[in-house]
């Protein structure tokens, strides 16, 4: 099954196509069901056995992380090849083999800031979906003001000793490892933070799930009591963790705006105009009978189209070597707005059918839309709130200053 990527792009495309034909199981070419999402890690249950096969095969190729270096288990592809792979995957409507904070956030940061030994140790398992990671950033007193975090980390000679609490740690109870921000110097704010990784099985780590308004409980309060962490699990320099933290947030924000949102509706949910046609009805010329709803749906569709075109534009501008920081920084804010507007419109278009919670009497897709609507409220909070993102745009992009 080993894959030797041909230099020639046409040949490459052909061989990708052949490989996918042979290796992508039939059920992995159907719309992804919410309960068949694969997050990997040692607790993964693989509800559909073919999703396990698909992950193993993609992981073996390094194609869960196509552009990462082959020596760490990545695909080792260049940009052009990676694009072809994406196109071919899309063509057969292949499901993503793996959802992973390791792939989206921690891996890219580690490749930049980790030492050789750390990369060799952590990256291959991320690529193969063997370890599942969670993000220990937020604390009860440090959310938007993340650099105010207090979780204490002391140097005990042969190990680090950690005491404190994290909150909103997504999937902490499912994760194998955590990447975590800790305070190593109390006397300075940003320059007293370090970036540490450790096993969630370590003694003294406890994760308690918190329930969301959408009914699911994807995140936890996470407590650390005298947790001992080996010295070599510090990433980057001591007290220089803030730079890594910020870079990782960039990866997080762009992965969120590239479509990693919860509450997008998932499979089986129709676009809002279709629900509006079904539930509100149409006039004699085929228009949605409620003119105001129709106008707002159209406005949303136009916004989505504008968003999609902007993603395309910044990709092209980046290829042409132009500065694209401008557009990248507005995308998290815009993506959150777009997804939330869509979810609101879905529920409104469904009418009372969009007001169900569970049980019979409501269609599955309608219930999904309702839960998705509730979940989408987190879009403007997770990964930095919309307000914080607007602050960033105002200061970094528009050059506006702080109060003096």
């Amino acid at each position, binding site marked *: 099954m080993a894959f030797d990527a041909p230099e020639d792009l046409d040949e490459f495309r052909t061989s990708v196509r052949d490989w996918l034909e042979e290796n992508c199981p039939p059920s992995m070419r159907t719309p992804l069901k919410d309960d068949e999402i694969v997050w990997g890690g040692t607790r993964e249950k693989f509800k559909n056995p073919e999703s396990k096969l698909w992950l193993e095969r993609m992981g073996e190729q390094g194609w869960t992380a196509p552009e990462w270096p082959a020596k760490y288990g990545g695909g080792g592809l260049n940009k052009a090849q990676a694009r072809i792979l994406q196109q071919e995957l899309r063509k057969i409507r292949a499901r993503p083999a793996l959802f992973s904070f390791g792939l989206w956030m921690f891996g890219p940061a580690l490749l930049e800031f980790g030492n050789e030994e750390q990369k060799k140790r952590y990256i291959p398992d991320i690529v193969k979906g063997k370890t599942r990671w969670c993000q220990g950033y937020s604390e009860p007193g440090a959310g938007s003001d993340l650099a105010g975090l207090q979780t204490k980390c002391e140097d005990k000679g042969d190990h680090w000793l950690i005491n404190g609490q994290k909150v909103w740690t997504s999937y902490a109870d499912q994760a194998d490892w955590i990447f975590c921000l800790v305070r190593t110097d109390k006397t300075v704010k940003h320059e007293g933070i370090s970036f540490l990784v450790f096993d969630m099985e370590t003694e003294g780590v406890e994760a308690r799930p918190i329930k969301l308004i959408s009914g699911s409980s994807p995140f936890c309060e996470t407590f650390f009591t005298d947790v001992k962490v080996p010295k070599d699990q510090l990433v980057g320099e001591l007290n220089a963790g803030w730079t890594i933290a910020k870079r990782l947030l960039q990866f997080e924000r762009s992965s969120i705006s590239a479509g990693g949102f919860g509450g997008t509706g998932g499979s089986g949910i129709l676009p809002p105009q279709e629900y509006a046609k079904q539930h509100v009805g149409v006039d004699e010329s085929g228009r949605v009978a409620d003119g105001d709803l129709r106008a707002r749906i159209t406005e949303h569709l136009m916004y989505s189209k504008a968003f999609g*075109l902007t993603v395309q534009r910044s990709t092209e501008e980046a290829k042409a070597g132009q500065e694209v920081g401008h557009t990248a920084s507005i995308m998290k804010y815009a993506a959150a707005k777009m997804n939330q507007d869509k979810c609101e419109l879905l529920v409104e278009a469904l009418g009372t059918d969009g007001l169900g919670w569970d049980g019979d009497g409501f269609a599955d897709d309608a219930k999904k839309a309702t839960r998705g609507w509730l979940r989408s409220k987190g879009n403007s909070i997770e990964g930095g709130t919309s307000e914080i993102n607007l602050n960033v745009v105002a200061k970094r992009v528009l050059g506006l200053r702080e109060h003096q």
Partner: protein
Amino acid sequence: MSFVLSEDQQMLRDTAMAFARDEMPVTHLRELRDGGANGVDAEMRGKLAELGFFGVLVPEEHDGVGLGMVAMGQIMEAQGRTIAATPLLQTAVIGASVLILGGSEAQKAEWLPKIASGEVTVAVAVDEGTHHAPLNVATEAERNGQGYTLNGAKRFVADGHHADIFIVAARTFGEAGQAHGISLFLVPNDADGLSVQALNTVDSHGAAHLTLEDVAVSEDHVVGAVDAGWEVLEPALDRGRIALAAEALGSAQAAFDMTLEYMQTRKQFGQLIGSFQSLQHRAAKMFTELELTRSCVAAALSGVDENRNDVAELASLAKARASDLIHLVSNETVQFHGGIGMTDAHDSGLYMKRARVQEALLGGASYHRDRYAKLNGF
């Protein structure tokens, strides 16, 4: 779809930006206004012609430069930055497009070189009510021997007050609301029975109401097939809408830049007003809208050059979003400037006045949302 300019397009953009800045700054519009010129400037028209701007869409065989819509969009954006009054939208974009898309060989040979050289200006006269509704043409064209007799009225024809030639949409069949039965006629401004009432408009660009009373036109003045003028008119209007969206984008960008600069210089409470978060967030949102609209305009411009089959959709997307954008930005520009923004001496009012005209011409946001929804089948 292409979002990155070619070298030719970039060069034209630079030329157009420099020209707008140096030759047609906002002060120039003020001078025209205060001198009662009603947006008409023969000397400037000559300079625009020298630069080849009128011939950007005209193919080389008819003495144009045939650079296409992306190139034209750069010029429109530049003129939008300084809210300059020029006949480019009506003449170089819509008028030229009507002739390119529907003109006979003889018509093209006669008119396109004159358009490209700036010798004649054109105004396309479609709307008869106060809102853009190109299907609602009621002006009658009655067959009369070898020609036609036109009767009707056209409202708020942009550039109508100084156009040499009108392209008049009139009905040869059917009734208002139907596409079939609309035909297009070339009517010179000195035709018997045509009266042109110049309008003083809020943006100081001027426009005109037209009245047609038994205006006689010959058969060879029909552009496109009789009854099937819509097939020419609609795509030509779409090019106009896209170009106008590019213009509005330029205006919005300029008004935004001006506002941002003020935020970084004006102090109150011992602070730069730009350091107040309520203003910062509104500025960041405007910036987001600007960037999203820029993508739509770029996509629509290149969509025309690539002959895509979704140009109508892209045109409505670009025009609706640009209309909303310029509305928002022009209002905020006045508000962010406080009292000074309300004075005639400051430019923010001029941007707001032009904004409302940019919005209304060729269909506002509501018109284009409705069209977009229809094109998407709901």
